[in-house]
């Protein structure tokens, strides 16, 4: 007579048994054991119940992008909040619950500019790079229309900006640039801030404009970019809008990004002015960068308040 199957062995085989993965002989031995073992029968009931739980719905693209952003901007500890940051409360965005975090404006600037995440002082291809400590000490929350020592790109002085704004809102629309320079993280951030001319943009449009102009601005940027980049602009912008409906695209650029020596990629940079309010100025800005064609991988993100230079 066959020896009764070991109790511990049956417990180990139960999950395969309910999935029908055992040979007929082994399954029969398990059934024989179950008929006489209350503990194993009870375990089988639990396994059958667990079968009902099923798989959770997979992560959505929005959730993945939010995770990446929340994680990949954590490289530098947050500094103490500046008075400006205290004056402008951070508004957590709940795309899927309390997990979706916006860093305080002052903290984020210091975090991104002092950021080792996207580069460790590798070859910047001739781009100007301020010292990390200088950037980390930057106290101001201002995104300035006039950039000191700007290299390439287009930038507007305050006077020119005022003139453009006075000329009409159409004169200050979204802009696209094709950059051929190579940037590291800090260089990319400086390039984005320079090229955005966000002060002018934010003075030209308000929250009420977003619903009517948002899609048009995306299309203008996509049409100007053309090719594969156009689709990336549309897709990545749509992802941003899902999280921040009050965002108006101000700027797009394709640039060479070199986060570490020898590793380059072409990236899409998108800049937005936005607000969480239904009315009023677009007083905040955000800049994103993704590999061209891949809106799932957030390579760079920064958020700031926009304050005109005094």
């Amino acid at each position, binding site marked *: 007579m066959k020896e009764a199957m070991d109790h*511990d062995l049956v*417990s*180990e085989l139960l*999950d395969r*048994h*309910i999935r*029908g993965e055992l040979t007929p002989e082994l*399954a029969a031995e398990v059934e024989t054991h179950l008929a006489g073992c209350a*503990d194993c*029968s*009870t*375990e*089988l*009931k*639990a*396994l*059958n*119940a*667990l*079968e*009902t*739980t*099923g*798989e*959770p*719905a*997979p*992560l959505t693209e929005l*959730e*993945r992008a939010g*995770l*990446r952003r*929340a*994680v*990949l901007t*954590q*490289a530098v500890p947050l500094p103490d909040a500046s008075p400006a940051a205290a004056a402008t409360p951070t508004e957590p965005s709940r795309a*899927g*619950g*309390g*997990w979706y*975090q916006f860093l305080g404006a002052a903290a984020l600037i210091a975090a991104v500019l002092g950021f*080792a*995440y*996207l*580069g*460790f002082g*590798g070859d910047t291809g001739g781009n100007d790079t301020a010292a990390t400590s200088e950037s980390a000490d930057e106290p101001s929350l201002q995104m300035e229309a006039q950039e000191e020592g700007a290299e390439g790109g287009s930038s507007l002085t305050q006077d020119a900006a005022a003139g453009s704004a006075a000329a009409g809102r159409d004169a200050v629309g979204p802009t696209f640039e094709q950059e051929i320079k190579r940037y590291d993280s800090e260089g990319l951030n400086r390039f984005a801030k320079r090229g955005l001319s966000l002060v002018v943009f934010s003075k030209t449009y308000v929250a009420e404009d977003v619903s009517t102009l948002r899609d048009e601005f995306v299309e203008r940027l996509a049409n100007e970019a053309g090719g594969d980049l156009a689709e990336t602009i549309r897709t990545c912008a749509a992802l941003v809008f899902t999280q921040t409906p009050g965002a108006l695209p101000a700027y797009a650029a394709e640039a060479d990004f070199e*986060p*570490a*020596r020898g*590793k380059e990629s072409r990236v899409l940079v998108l800049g937005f002015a936005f607000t969480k309010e239904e009315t009023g100025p677009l007083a905040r800005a955000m800049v994103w960068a993704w590999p061209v064609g891949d809106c*799932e*991988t*957030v*390579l760079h993100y920064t958020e700031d308040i926009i304050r005109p230079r005094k």
Partner: protein
Amino acid sequence: MADARSDHDLLHSFLGGDQTTFAELMRRHEDKIFALAYRMTGDRADALDATQDAFISAFKQAKSFRFDSAFGTWLYRIAMNSCHDLLRKRKRWGPTSEENQDKPDRSVSAVDDSVAARIDVTRALAQLPDEYREAVVMYDLGGISYDEISGITGAPIGTVKSRISRGRRQLAGLLEHRDPSSESERTT
């Protein structure tokens, strides 16, 4: 194009200065970590919180990884800790946000019955002792091997097997207590 490098190679690259490789590591593991967190917490928002916390911890603690185990195993351990921390903070013994939305009515339809059954199992899992819940979630729901669970929890394999067995029995007891009239046993 998919990055063909191993997890260890990506992590070496990350520690060497190429922090974009962490995004690739996230891409590889975020679904499994999220599924694990969801099964541990029973709530999508909590699972997202725990997943985020786990990856942030891994990002910051990457220097402490000793390359003597699989990266995924190390990440699971961090994720388990994140889940425990979150559940302690939430002190969740009552209905989750999803359960409140579902509001199952057992008398209505088969669809509602399956939702009710899922919620019952989720609640019952939440009432198991941490080490039993971990073991059952990882082995029976996550398909993680005894070896790997042993590596994640630090418990010997024999202890892991025992926890799984006892966890299942406690779970069955809790489910019977909720609805003694339900016949959940399936013939195989």
